[in-house]
């Protein structure tokens, strides 16, 4: 009887052992795959945000330079909105996907940009990349 018990133990142990060996191999592979797959998705999403934010930023910086030295009242209103937009962008952690106010801040920045464009009397003609930056007017 003791012999039979040993035999059953051996069978169960073998069963778990083989499952376990497969599991360890799989876990290693899965960890590696998870990083790779995660990075692929993350890169795409990060690039979308970076592209859009960068676009607003470049636009704002360039216009700040173009308006340099302009002194009309309308121009000073433009500058005010410009500086506000630049400030908002600079505070925005564009490379942090875990930022809790990501969408909120992004929407505020988009709104400020639209306000700037209407003040400048500009129809922005952004060449949107294939991925799309969400800009459409």
């Amino acid at each position, binding site marked *: 009887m003791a012999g039979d018990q040993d035999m059953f133990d051996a069978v169960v142990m073998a069963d778990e052992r083989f499952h376990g060996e*497969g599991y360890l*191999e799989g876990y290693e592979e*899965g960890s590696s795959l998870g990083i790779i*797959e995660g990075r692929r998705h993350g*890169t795409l999403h990060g690039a979308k945000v970076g592209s859009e934010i960068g*676009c607003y930023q470049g636009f704002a910086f360039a216009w700040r330079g173009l308006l340099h030295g302009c002194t009309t009242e309308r121009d000073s209103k433009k500058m005010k909105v410009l500086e506000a937009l630049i400030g908002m962008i600079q505070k925005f952690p564009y490379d942090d996907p875990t930022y809790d106010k990501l969408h909120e801040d992004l929407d505020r920045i988009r709104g400020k940009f639209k306000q700037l464009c209407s003040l400048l009397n500009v*129809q922005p003609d952004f060449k949107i990349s294939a*991925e799309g930056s969400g800009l459409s007017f």
Partner: protein
Amino acid sequence: MSWVQAASLVQGPEEDGDVFDEEADESLLVQREWQSHMQRRVKEGYRDGIDAGKAVTLQQGFNQGYKEGAEVIINYGQLRGTLSALLSWCHLHDDSSALVSKINNLLDAVGQCEDYVLRHLRSVTSQPHVVDLLDSLQDMDLSHVAPAEEKIDEAKDERFCENNAEFNKNCSKNLSQVDCSSLECCRAQEHERPENPSLTWILEQTASLVKQLGVSIDILQHLKQL
């Protein structure tokens, strides 16, 4: 598991000749069932392991990729935004359409560069870290009774980090060797620098454009980091 060892030692006779040797036939059958069951267990374990491992690192990978994608592509976004500002300036001041079409060409070029870089960033990370299950299964000696090697240890984690660092190194190495000759904007251009030649060309064209518009070159200051 001495009976397993005993079973595996049994030399099964050729199929044609074992019709009357029931005992050998039965133990061969048992052996095969055992092997097939254990192979199934290994495969199940492997699948379970993959799911578990993936769940742990997916978010981590996403965060890494997100940061990298944003940091690399934001520069192209800034260039596009700058060119768009110049374009809108041209429209407002009713400048010649030659400049307008030039700016549009540059915008297209930046878009192409951006797409190329993004595709490259994503493709570099899709080369899998290969563990060949089938080889492992074949290597797995089913009468093997010695304890399995201690596989999960810190050295493994370090290897993941090294591999990631290698991916990053390869990525920036590949980016710096980007051959943009397939891009339309580059066809007429010589490669002045090995790193991203079309971007250099675009920046130079933008600078000359600014001069042509009679605007201070200072407005391009924010692009210095490119």
